[in-house]
């Protein structure tokens, strides 16, 4: 058991290392010279040479990779050519803002998915079950920016005007100082993720409800609530935990489009800005961050899967 987890951990670390290599190699493919990009067209060859030396661009590739990797490990993410400042100060507040969005969406969609999945599993074959599965099939098909745009049309501009469609935060203030502007971005992410969790929970719960031990618990005369909470839920949660974790991993990437849509000041919007301005070190830092989060959440998913699978846990 412990050996399996350690092995999985080692694989994750290896994958993470390969990802750093991939992100670094991608920037080598970039045409043009960063020193020239910083100094502009009028720069003299001497100044370019001096800056190249300062930025370490004249060093061999492997040494630049190691320097960059060392920087990442010590928390120095590099220099942003577009804003002429360090990547750290550019991303500091944005990381917090993105995490607020992610955690809120994750908590709400998990709760909604589990509740709705259990509720429909208990009403299998009834109209309400068909309605929920039909709606979730439709929503699951939509790209996230289409869901967000539909919400803006419905709740923010044309039909009702309940919530702001863009995030406007005064400099220095935090995004959550005005909670109403968090509603639509969070709701969009919840609508993207919750259908998958609901469908998986309904499928697993249906199986569990048909099992012998649930029938046994009912025959003992236990109240239905105890049967669900104490006997059925713990058995259903294992397989669903993996789907939840996969969805949360998806959120790490999906947040990019949603932040752009609502002009939310997080790392996703910063990534789009940086891609447009070819701000290489910012792109490197953010893609690495998102990939790292993706890998960690997937790792957690597998560990939860191992812990809740009795066949593996017994080994």
């Amino acid at each position, binding site marked *: 058991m412990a050996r399996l987890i350690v092995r999985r951990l080692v694989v994750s670390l290896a994958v993470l290392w390969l990802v750093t290599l991939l992100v670094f190699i991608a920037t080598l493919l970039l045409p043009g010279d960063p020193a020239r990009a910083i100094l502009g067209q009028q720069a003299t060859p001497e100044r370019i040479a001096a800056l190249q030396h300062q930025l370490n661009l004249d060093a061999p590739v492997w040494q630049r990779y190691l320097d960059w990797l060392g920087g990442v490990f010590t928390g120095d993410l590099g220099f942003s050519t577009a804003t002429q400042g360090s990547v750290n100060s550019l991303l500091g507040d944005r990381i917090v803002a993105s995490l607020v969005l992610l955690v809120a969406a994750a908590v709400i969609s998990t709760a909604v998915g589990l509740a709705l999945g259990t509720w429909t599993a208990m009403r299998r074959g009834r109209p309400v079950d068909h309605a929920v599965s039909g709606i979730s099939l439709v929503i*699951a098909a939509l*790209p996230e920016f289409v869901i967000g745009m539909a919400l803006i049309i419905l709740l923010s501009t044309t039909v009702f005007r309940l919530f702001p469609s863009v995030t406007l935060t005064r400099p220095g203030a935090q995004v959550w100082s005005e909670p109403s502007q968090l509603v639509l971005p969070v709701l969009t992410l919840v609508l993207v993720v919750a259908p998958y969790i609901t469908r998986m929970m309904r499928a697993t719960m249906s199986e569990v409800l048909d099992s012998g031990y649930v029938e046994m618990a009912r025959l003992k005369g236990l109240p239905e609530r105890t049967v669900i909470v104490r006997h059925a839920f713990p058995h259903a949660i294992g397989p669903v935990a993996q789907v939840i974790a996969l969805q949360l991993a998806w959120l790490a990437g999906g947040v990019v489009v949603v932040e752009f849509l609502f002009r939310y000041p997080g790392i996703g919007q910063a990534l789009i800005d940086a*891609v447009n301005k070819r701000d290489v070190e910012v792109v490197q830092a953010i893609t690495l961050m998102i990939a790292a989060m993706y890998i960690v959440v997937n790792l957690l998913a597998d560990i939860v899967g191992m812990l809740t699978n009795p066949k593996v846990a017994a080994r």
Partner: protein
Amino acid sequence: MTAVDKLEVVATPEVPATHPGLFHRAWALPTAKIGTVLTAVVVLVAVLGPWLGPVITGHDPTDFAGKPFKHDGIAGTDGIGRDVFTRFLAGGSTLLLYAVLATAIGIVLGAAVGMFAGYSGGRLDSVVMRGNDVLLSFPQLVFALLAIAMIGPHGWLLVTVIGVTHAPRIARVARQATVAVVGCDYIRAAEMYAVPRWRILTGEVLPNITGPLMVELGLRLTYSIGYVASLSFLGLGIQPPSADWGLMINENRIALVVQPWGVLLPVLAIAVLTVGTNLITDSLASAAAHKEAR
């Protein structure tokens, strides 16, 4: 050579190459019919739109048609005075083409790698699938953004990067399905006749994993449409002044209150298209699962 020919005669009648049963079973479900109608409507608009647009409205998609935010014509004009309805009709063809091409690349690459790994088994299998896991550890959209940041927003890059990032996901499914049929008698029989490996893969394995592959095809097509539209929406896909649904939503969303059509029409088109393909996929998945259950 004669042995191979004889084998084909013996082996094929049992398993028809195109699996008509799968589509028959899927078509019996209402989701398949609704999905096909929805998809067909949007595909028709996307394919015929570029020709019909100028005929119906008298404007070209990039023409100046009048003052900004005018409300005459079918859907008025956009922020720089181009006819919204013409641009809507012209805006689906590139999106659809890119999505179909990306899905095709993903299916061909993914099925080839997955079948090869699953049929070979052993060390080769585990090495290929480990490499696959590495590629899976990158969110698709972020991978596409990284590529576009480095090379620029070109159509070919969009198609390639979405297709290539589909491949490891499809390979996983193809491998699993292949492993399930590798032990079957008809494959062992083909091996005994010394049929070359690629003929076994294309002639024996492929026809028997079409169920899961068709489900993957539908799923990845839905995602491809979403990714291409999302990237255009982000300003990193199809570039202005081209008419494109994703791009139109981004261009017109600032003026949503004055001119809702510029956003509403493309949002509806993308929504109906993806819901349609997803319903078809769902019916295929039910049909494939039903077959396994029997």
